[in-house]
């Protein structure tokens, strides 16, 4: 049996060894429509939550495609789409410089303060 078959990826045994190319060819890359990130509000009262992305030629088509792709079974009541290129992100791994200062500001949390048991409603 070939050494490069894995069953991973749902539907079964497929070669996934190093001979399978992965890097995009420059000629095809960017031929596709721009990438949009999709956010869905599950129901009234909830935040819009990121659900994935899709390609679309423009904003309006992105909303239509998002409706078909991400809300086929009442997953939501409202959709936001935004061009991926327009998102500025802090990466989880930049977390240390970005979020570390909060770590020693324990006084920002309610549990920092000791209140006697007999004080009601606090």
């Amino acid at each position, binding site marked *: *049996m*070939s*050494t*490069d*078959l*894995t*069953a*991973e*990826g*749902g*539907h*079964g*045994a*497929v*070669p*996934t*060894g*190093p001979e*399978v*190319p*992965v*890097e*995009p*060819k420059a000629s*095809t*890359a*960017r*031929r*596709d*429509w721009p*990438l949009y990130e999709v956010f869905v509000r599950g129901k009234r009262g909830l935040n819009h939550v990121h*659900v*994935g*992305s*899709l*390609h679309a*030629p*423009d904003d309006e*088509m992105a909303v239509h495609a998002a409706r078909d*792709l991400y809300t*086929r*079974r009442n997953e939501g009541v409202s959709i936001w789409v935004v061009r991926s290129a327009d998102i500025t*992100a802090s*990466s*989880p*791994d*930049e977390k240390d*410089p970005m979020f570390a200062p909060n770590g020693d500001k324990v006084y920002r949390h309610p549990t920092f303060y000791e209140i006697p048991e007999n004080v009601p409603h606090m």
Partner: protein
Amino acid sequence: MSAPTLDRPAAPDEAALQAHFDAVIAAGHRIEPRDWMPEGYRQGLIRQIAQHAHSEIIGMQPEGDWLLAAPSLRRKAILLAKVQDEAGHGMYLYSAAETLGADRADLTDKLIERRQKYSSIFNYPTLTYADVGVIGWLVDGAAICNQVPLCRSSYGPYARAMIRVCKEESFHQRQGYELLMTMMAGSDAQRAMVADAVDRWWWPSLMMFGPPDDDSPNSAQSMRWGVKRHSNDELRQRFVDMTVPQAAVLGVTLPDPELALDPATGRYRFGPIDWSELKAVIAGNGPCNAERIARRRAARDDNAWVTEAATAYASKHAA
């Protein structure tokens, strides 16, 4: 006024990044797209997610062949919803692959050029309408066994896509099983059709789990990285154990004389799998390999004008 000088941190060294990555995996946390990751992990994931996405979209074809021939409006609506779901699964997965630096148009080109593969199971033909039921029951059932553990894959976007997919797969399996129950309650000819379809799909379904563990050297690395959670043989065994009682309820005989409950383990023993068949199908010699790729190529090329028109419209209105 001169620009302030920035205190740039020194480039982090690879060993420290690797140690951090290993610690995240060891803690059972998820790797996210902008994290540093070893090249082998990134490329391995692209290969896996891409072939998975390809399998979903090629997987639309065998059942799609029955869309117009399904026997009632109800059955047509169900089948249409299922085939549409499979397109959706492909899209979720291509979008997960793109978070790793892959490009969707490039991946689908590589599929058409046969440089990346899709699951061998979709190279078998759907000869009768009973095949639609058996695909839902066995093929989607096997996919569920493979996919449920992937919901805990170490790569965040892949795991999230799989959660979404798994929710929908349950409908796929149940509609197939219900279709078969209906046919089994029908005429002798319908029951014979089901039996024939089960005979044809049983062994290819078992092959979906891949070669035996002692013949899958890549699995070990995949399991260390938390990309894969269970071995091929373990998943195959789970599938058999789940399916045999379902076959009994349905009243069909699985085409394996060696299939028997092992009282010591409570699990089912089954006969040897013909791996040469899997090898031949993967090599391109299955009954439908050429047809599947040809249709995918036609879908891309014949519809290119739609893509171009929408792009032209968008750029005209962007001005």
